[in-house]
């Protein structure tokens, strides 16, 4: 009986773990089946909690569209040396991540910034909002839990 209850709880919490990793779970907001790889110019950075948002203007054959890319909490970014001077409007960046589950792009497309680099390959450092299904990666024990 105890084992059964334990299993029920662990199964329930298994999903909640995703929730608890960040302000929200990756899968609550983003779609792991909708990867993106965009290159564009930063037009605005919102230094707001619970997530910073980078607005990127991307131009393709259809014209220009703004992507809002979700990042980390500003307090933590600042402590890690990422400031307003790190990402100034006009900077070209490459964003690899996943689009929001809505995929509506009305009026802007929304994505998480799993990996953000400058064109020379150096890191801008963003992050997924939660882990989707896997672990966060910060905890060295994670590798054993996969």
């Amino acid at each position, binding site marked *: 009986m105890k084992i059964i209850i334990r299993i029920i709880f662990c199964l329930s919490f298994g999903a909640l773990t995703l929730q*608890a990793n960040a302000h929200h779970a990756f899968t609550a907001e983003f779609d792991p089946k909708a990867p993106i790889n965009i290159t564009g110019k930063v037009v605005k950075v919102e230094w707001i909690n619970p997530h910073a948002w980078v607005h990127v203007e991307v131009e393709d054959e259809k014209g220009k569209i703004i992507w809002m890319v979700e990042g980390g909490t500003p307090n933590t970014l600042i402590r890690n040396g990422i400031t307003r001077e790190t990402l100034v409007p006009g900077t070209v960046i490459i964003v690899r991540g996943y689009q929001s589950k809505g995929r509506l792009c009305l009026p802007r497309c929304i994505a998480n910034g799993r990996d953000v680099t400058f064109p020379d390959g150096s890191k801008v450092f963003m992050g997924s909002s939660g882990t989707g299904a896997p672990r966060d990666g910060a*905890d060295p024990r994670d590798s054993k839990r996969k």
Partner: protein
Amino acid sequence: MKSIKGTVLFFLITVFSYAEAGEVMTTWFGDPDLQGTWTNASLTTLERPDNYTSLLVTEEQANSAATLAADFTEAIDNPYEEGESPKAGENVGGYNTAWMDPGTQLFQINGEYRSSILTYPEDGKLPRKWITWGIEAPSIYRMFTRANHPEQRSLGERCLVGFGSSGGPPMLNVLYNNNYQIVQSPGYVMILVEMVHDARIIRLEGSPLPDHIKPWLGDSIGHWEGNTLVVKTKNHHLQQRFRGAIRHQILITENAEVTEKFTRTSADEILYEFSVNDDVAYKDVWRGEMPLRRAEGNIYEYACHEGNYSMANILAGAREEERRNQ
């Protein structure tokens, strides 16, 4: 500039006071001074990982833990080769380390590395009553699977309190925003929790609130025992029963009694001890301790609601999923 000078002066006075006198600094009204900005970021977690067999670990083990953590975060920071794109349905990866502040080492108390925050039970594991946890499971599951309206989502997503037990009590470390500011005034001690802007106001020698008033972080009443601030908290909020994070998962039921002790041990450190007496969710009392170390910089206003675009995105995503499944 004035505030910077003031901060520097305050810091120097604090350090000087400890260095010269070796005595506990006091506030202008005579209470031991706990004020400042503190952090509990650490690789040490509430429960003891299975790879440790004792509370104390060697320096070699601590260095190994730090190296392992650094290697792992390096790996997740570099998930793609140059020019490679993410693939649909693959492991979406985890946080980039720039987003986190989980600490880089196991913490030390009296110069000894610790494998867990828990000091009792001695095995470093919570003495859970699994029947209570099993009863709680369905509501936990619903919390993250339903998205008809914001009230169905978790308190963290709703910007009401931080996730896990970051705000406490007991105050436990999570992956980031492990920062606290303590401010004292005559009769009160206030603890501002960085995530999600929670302020716990501890009334010294105060009377309990009526039972129907249940603050998000419980009803805390404190007193001084020598230089130690002792805080007892009851009247826990019903929706704060379950506190889940990667690093800990605890239940604190409404009538649990959480006792905390804050002792300033140096200019740059407070020893934080706690015990949890909750016979609904646990078979025994559990106790823990960890250092609060002086944090660099300020805590900025969190203002979570104002920027919480994610809630709208979550609800919109749920509606889109419904549309696709019709």
